[in-house]
């Protein structure tokens, strides 16, 4: 059995640490297997400095060969440092540190593993769990979504793009505030910033199911600034999933979509990727219409159905040039939805009256003609 398969052994090795960094004790895995991540393992620990329970994010020691993932892990710890004290972004409690631990194999060969970790505030849950098990009312969904947008806005203000917004990376805190987390695939758009992946090599950063088509087309290395548009796409996909329970891209990114995209972008020489994509994206969008939010899964309350449909469609436009990418407009739309939702009866009465007046006007016009 390889070390890689010995997740349980590794989890126990971390749990066996009495104190880490002189402050974190009583280390316990989250869930049965330390969270769903392949590259990082999640633990809870008691922090003697703050007196709070915190989350320890530990890089899987058997995956250290994957230089990109390890660098991403380190960069996440570093980037989180820039957001200390800011709401809607997960707070780092301690900076990156390492510890080593050895173990003997049945053949008496001693292995030493290096564990890198940092501590963050402990969340109660994440949006993925909220979506999976339902139970949120429409207002809570909208408030959670607004928090997620605020978190992403804080990143964008600092010229950082997240590149992997998805329900699992949106943590729900004990006070029901949603915070954006997992900056492992994020990237600074500063001119001096060095990308971890220098060029497109068939490797998409982040979760494919929430990646915008331009990211799937490999434009992120040639035009990193497009990741801003892609983050908005991710937000739209999250909004869709919050109200339908279904992953948007599973309905859009089917075999024919992938075939169209890959055949259009195959054999494109370096430097020409964006130009070719721009020529092709209208056709891609026309050929793959977005599903109607109201006709899918759980749907949304009728009073905000059309607005939500419009909002998510604006955010998820496959053609990034036509996509909504202004937070002001996004927040305004969310606020309108919240107001309508909180005053549903009044709104429906107003709507009925408006329709009646319009019908009267049209009738009068007919008579006049």
């Amino acid at each position, binding site marked *: 059995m390889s070390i890689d398969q010995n997740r349980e052994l590794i989890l126990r090795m971390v749990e066996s640490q009495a104190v880490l960094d002189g402050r974190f004790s009583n280390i316990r895995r989250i869930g049965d297997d330390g969270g*769903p991540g392949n590259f990082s393992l999640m633990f809870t620990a008691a922090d003697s400095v703050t007196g709070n329970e915190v989350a320890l994010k530990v890089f899987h020691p058997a995956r250290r060969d994957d230089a990109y993932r390890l660098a991403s892990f380190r960069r996440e710890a570093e980037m989180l440092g820039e957001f200390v004290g800011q709401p809607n972004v997960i707070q780092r409690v301690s900076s990156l540190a390492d510890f080593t631990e050895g173990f003997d194999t049945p053949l008496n060969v001693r292995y030493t593993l290096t564990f890198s970790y940092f501590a963050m505030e402990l969340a109660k849950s994440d949006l993925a769990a909220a979506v999976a098990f339902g139970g949120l009312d429409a207002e809570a969904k909208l408030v959670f979504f607004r928090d997620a947008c605020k978190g992403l806005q804080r990143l964008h203000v600092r010229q950082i793009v997240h590149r992997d917004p998805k329900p699992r990376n949106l943590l729900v805190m004990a006070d029901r505030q949603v915070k954006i987390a997992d900056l492992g695939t994020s990237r600074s758009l500063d001119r001096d910033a060095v990308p971890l992946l220098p060029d497109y090599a068939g490797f998409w950063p982040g979760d494919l*199911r929430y990646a915008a088509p331009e990211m799937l087309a490999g434009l992120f290395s040639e035009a990193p600034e497009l990741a801003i548009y892609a983050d908005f796409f991710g937000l739209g996909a999250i909004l869709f999933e919050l109200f339908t329970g*279904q992953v948007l891209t599973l309905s859009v990114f089917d075999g024919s979509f992938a*075939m169209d995209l*890959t055949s259009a972008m195959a054999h494109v020489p370096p430097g020409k990727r964006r130009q070719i994509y721009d020529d092709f994206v209208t*056709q891609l969008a*026309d050929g*793959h219409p977005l599903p109607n939010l109201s006709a899918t*899964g759980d749907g949304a309350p009728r009073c905000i159905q059309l607005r939500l449909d419009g909002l998510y469609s604006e955010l998820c436009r496959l053609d990034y040039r036509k996509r909504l990418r202004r937070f002001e407009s996004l927040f305004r739309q969310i606020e309108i939805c919240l107001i309508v939702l909180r005053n549903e009866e009044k709104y429906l009465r107003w709507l009925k009256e408006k329709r009646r007046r319009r019908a009267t006007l049209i009738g009068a016009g007919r008579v006049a003609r």
Partner: protein
Amino acid sequence: MIDLAQELKKKPSFVPIDPPDVDDIQALPVAGPGVEPTEVVGRFLRQITEKTRRDATYYSKSYRAQINLGVALLNKGDLSAAQEAFELALKLEPANQTAVLQLGRIYLRQGNLVKAKDAFASLRKVMPHSAEPFVGLAEVSAASGDLEEAQHLLQGAVDQDGHSLAARFQLATIFMRMGRTNEAVRALKAAVRIQPRAPFLHYALGVSYAIRKDPARAKRAFEVSLRLAPGMAQAVKALSKVLLEGASFQAVRELLAEQVAKDPHDFELRELLAWAYVREQNYLAARRQLYTALSELPASVATINRARIANNLGVCYEFLKDLKHAEHFFLLSIDTFAEGGPIAYQNLERLYLQMDKAQAAQAIAERCLAQYPEDRTSVMLGAVALGEQERYGEAIAQCQSFLEKADDAQISAVLSNLLTDAERFDEAIQVLRKAMRSKPLDRALINNLAYVYLMSDAIAEARDVLRQVPENEPAGAYLAATRGLLRLREGDLAGGVEGYERSQQIALQQGNQRLAVRSKQKMHLELAKAWLLRGNVDVALQEVRKGLALPLKRGAYVRDLKRLAARLSKS
């Protein structure tokens, strides 16, 4: 006398790709995968499925996670795993509409119509105002062949939800399958109003116009779908077919050349391009395209396509006078897919007759008739091949056995031909008279009857029969020759020669050199007989020698010339 051996030897036939048809638009592109994934696409779908599976494992008690997994698996084309995921979702959340709907669709694709019907029927109870269950039930009805019921259900779906694209689209396909193309066009136009920029809708509209034989509108619809989706290979092919029918060969070449450059491994594109070249008689370019298509054809392509391309390649070689290669590819076509249709057999039979390989032609005709006993062309070609071997008895029996089952003017003409060659004139007359009862104005029958009368010295009857064809009607090579024979029998030698020379001229104008030679051979034979009747043995012998010197060495005329030569030598 019409010599059908010549007539049938004329042109090899192409097997064209099917024109745009309702089968081309069975699946709604937004509804499912329906694509053969490339390696990159396969990897993409695998990664998405794996991520979704991990979520489903992590949230194993969430029906939503199971539904997402089911959809991902459906996209990947893994129906049974998707079915499991949806069934698990139903266990977690009984009567979940999405899971029931997807399960219904899976059962439908698996051909389990009973379960599919149950699923959609139960869904109709809980979603009475949605079009989806109606569409599903209609698909079940259509799959079980009840198009009327499918149409009725889809009309119901449209009434429930006028904005349901799936309902209108399916309704259009049902109308097309029922042959009600006008209604199909109306349904598709309504669908286009719902989603005006969907290329597949314009494509489907183009197909329905093509079926309605409205090429101008079909062309416009395909062009719109191509403007919306320039890489849509289906639309390129359909537009090419419409343009080919309208003889816009240059436009087809331009359209296809670009598409072939984009997708050099699409054999259908190359076939269409080859077809355009053939219509322009550029057989060399056509051969190049077909050869590339055949040599690069992946193993997964159905053998019927391989057989079709091989046959068409053989046709190009035959037009290019490379008979050896033509033979090779016709044989390849037959050996690749013996059930691929009779055309390759017929082409090879004609080719062998042209190469004077009557025995081989007969063998192929027998193979063809074993597969397609009703194929009249092979009956004719087989009989002609037997006749060329002077096996008249077998040839005549073959035609007679076919005529016992059904009347057929052409087979009757061939039979009369064989009976005449076998010098059984009375039977030939009987056959032709019987055939003319149903087709009294058939020119081939008239010509053959007149010829048989002439051969049995019934000149007046022959003259009466030939009067049925007006003098001012443009005559074919055969009729001109028969008229020449009549003049000879009437004693007008110069008029007879004039008739035969006219026949040779017409045959040469038609590019049928062999027929011209045959006509000339017949002329010498009949002139020899005429001179002999007048007692001029020397000139008769000269005519016999001229006839035998011609490059045709087999058949009834050669046989008669040889007989005459022997008689003259004795005298």
